[in-house]
């Protein structure tokens, strides 16, 4: 069974100094939502940009395998990639304020996506734009087509971004922290929208986020990233039920859960900070903050299996004693 998007051993570096991504492997199945979760600097956004060939100047990427719908992305020319981007693979970004060109109307920006990739008249493209805006829950789409980005609120702009991403009926939507800049009530609306679109259009979504709440509610599969590596992969249910990697465990213990709050006890936390990873770094990046680290952690780390589709990068055995619920 081949996935829609398969990435194996992705590495991204900038100018030979910093390794932003040191080994990301994950698959997005058709019709599912896959979450890349991690904290700032872990490389999740860079991973998405690398997949879309949108890395900043000076970024070099290499991968053992990177394929979309059977097409090998690593060997595509810029032109061929441009034909895929916005067409079969679409991306929405975090900042709705800056993702839209303030000098052009919403309608013209959306129409441009369709006419560029699939040709056709501008009128037809505007019709489709209005149709999609209705689909994403924007009222009075006809009026909105003629408006400029600054006339819309953040939540509306993000919906416009989603509609724009859907103009060419993409198979894959990559969403990079799409709700981080939005209010929590708007966030819920946008995430519901994405789930509905997935169900109705068969859309596959790669969702990048740092919010474990979003991951739990929205994702089918999860890849946890730390310091440029995917350290654990599992289905959502599995990950929350039985996290294996010490970082994942630490992360889960840090998140305050309403209703299960103990005000007099300190929140779980992970001591220390993310280390700077230069080229030639070996071993586990988490060892400086891990309570279970020993000297073997400075060498190659094995990828262990912990059940169906659940693997993690650590020397520790799966389902070991410390992980059992207290």
């Amino acid at each position: 069974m081949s996935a829609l998007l398969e990435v194996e051993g992705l590495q991204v570096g900038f100018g030979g100094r910093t390794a932003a991504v040191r080994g990301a492997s994950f698959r997005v199945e058709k019709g599912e939502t896959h979450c890349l979760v991690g904290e700032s600097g872990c490389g999740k956004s860079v991973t998405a940009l690398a997949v879309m060939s949108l890395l900043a100047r000076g970024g070099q990427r290499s991968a053992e395998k990177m394929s979309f719908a059977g097409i090998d992305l690593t060997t595509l020319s810029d032109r061929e990639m441009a034909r895929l981007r916005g067409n079969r693979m679409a991306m929405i970004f975090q900042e709705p304020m800056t993702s839209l060109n303030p000098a052009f109307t919403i309608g013209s920006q959306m129409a441009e996506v369709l006419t560029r990739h699939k040709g056709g008249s501008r009128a037809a493209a505007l019709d489709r734009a209005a149709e999609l805006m209705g689909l994403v829950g924007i009222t009075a789409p006809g009026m909105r087509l003629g408006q400029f980005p600054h006339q819309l609120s953040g939540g509306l702009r993000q919906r416009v971004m989603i509609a724009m991403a859907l103009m060419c009926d993409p198979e894959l939507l990559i969403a990079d922290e799409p709700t981080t800049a939005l209010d929590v009530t708007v966030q819920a609306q946008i995430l519901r929208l994405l789930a509905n679109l997935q169900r109705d259009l068969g859309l596959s979504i790669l969702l990048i986020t740092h919010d474990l709440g979003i991951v739990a509610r929205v994702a089918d599969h999860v890849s946890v990233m730390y310091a440029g590596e995917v350290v654990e992969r599992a289905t959502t249910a599995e990950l929350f039920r039985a996290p294996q990697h010490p970082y994942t465990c630490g992360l889960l213990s840090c998140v305050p859960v309403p209703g299960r709050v103990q005000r007099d006890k300190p929140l779980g936390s992970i001591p220390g900070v993310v280390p700077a990873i230069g080229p030639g770094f070996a071993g586990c990046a988490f060892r400086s903050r891990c309570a279970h680290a020993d000297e073997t952690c400075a060498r190659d780390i094995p990828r262990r299996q912990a059940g169906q589709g659940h693997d993690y990068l650590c020397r520790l055995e799966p389902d070991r004693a410390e992980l059992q619920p207290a």
Partner: protein
Amino acid sequence: MTAAIEVENLRCEFRVHTGLMSAEKRVVAVDDVTFGVPAGSVLGIVGESGCGKSTLARLILGLLKPTAGTVLVDGKRLFDLDRKARARLIQPVFQDPFASLNPRRRIKDIVALPLTAQGTFSRNEIERRVGGILERVGLSAAMGERMPAQLSGGQRQRAAIARALVLEPRIVICDEPTSALDVSVQAQILNLLADLRRDLGLTYLFISHNLAVVEHVASEVAVMYLGRFVERNETDALFRAPAHPYTSALLQSVLTPEPGKGVPDIGLGDIMPDPSNIPPGCRFNPRCRVAIERCRHEAPARMVRPPQGMVECHLA
């Protein structure tokens, strides 16, 4: 219990020009806010963008001039005091650790600023106090010599906290102190804030949009909407049984890390709260699921719920 800080009828209006030809609009960012916080406790203030919580913080800190109202700290009128006296009573911790420290000064100079600004401390005294507070927040003396760019987000926030506490104020206003930090670091900072409050007998005003964090940190919570407090209650009571429909909506929209529950439908509609265009009647009525006819033209009165709680809703 005496209130460490009392805010009475605080109001802040802005005049905004929306265009060359159109008339001036009045934006009421904070509308008649009144509350008191008992000494040594934490009042959480939650709300979304445009609700005025940051404006409220800036008013209390003296960064903005209020249109009306007063603030009392330990019975003293805050706005009557000069800035140096105010600094001894109330200090801020801001949201963005990257923007709240002057990138061109060393950490120890930044932390020492409240002391040097007073002009009454000797150099030795300043050094002693700065060293002490840096240690207390978990920063080494070596880090005091560094520039902010050399510290991580969590460390910078610790420095910001050190600066807020070096003068030993009574009240600390925390304006989203962990929203810009990673989850693992957020927990460290929240734990630090809790320890310091206990040890130094501080009173916090904790502003956040993150309800889970507020539930962990605050003993009481006030919900702000379009410039007014619409509900205030003890934390557990508020989270268990919210009285105001907006509070319910906020609580429902919190996505807890519990798989399989999906994303809730809050049903607030598409209308965004606009402080320059406050609806008549109850300001929440256009988005309220349970609004009745009365809500559309009659603003609800403030109903007090002892000991400190209140709610503004016709249906509460």
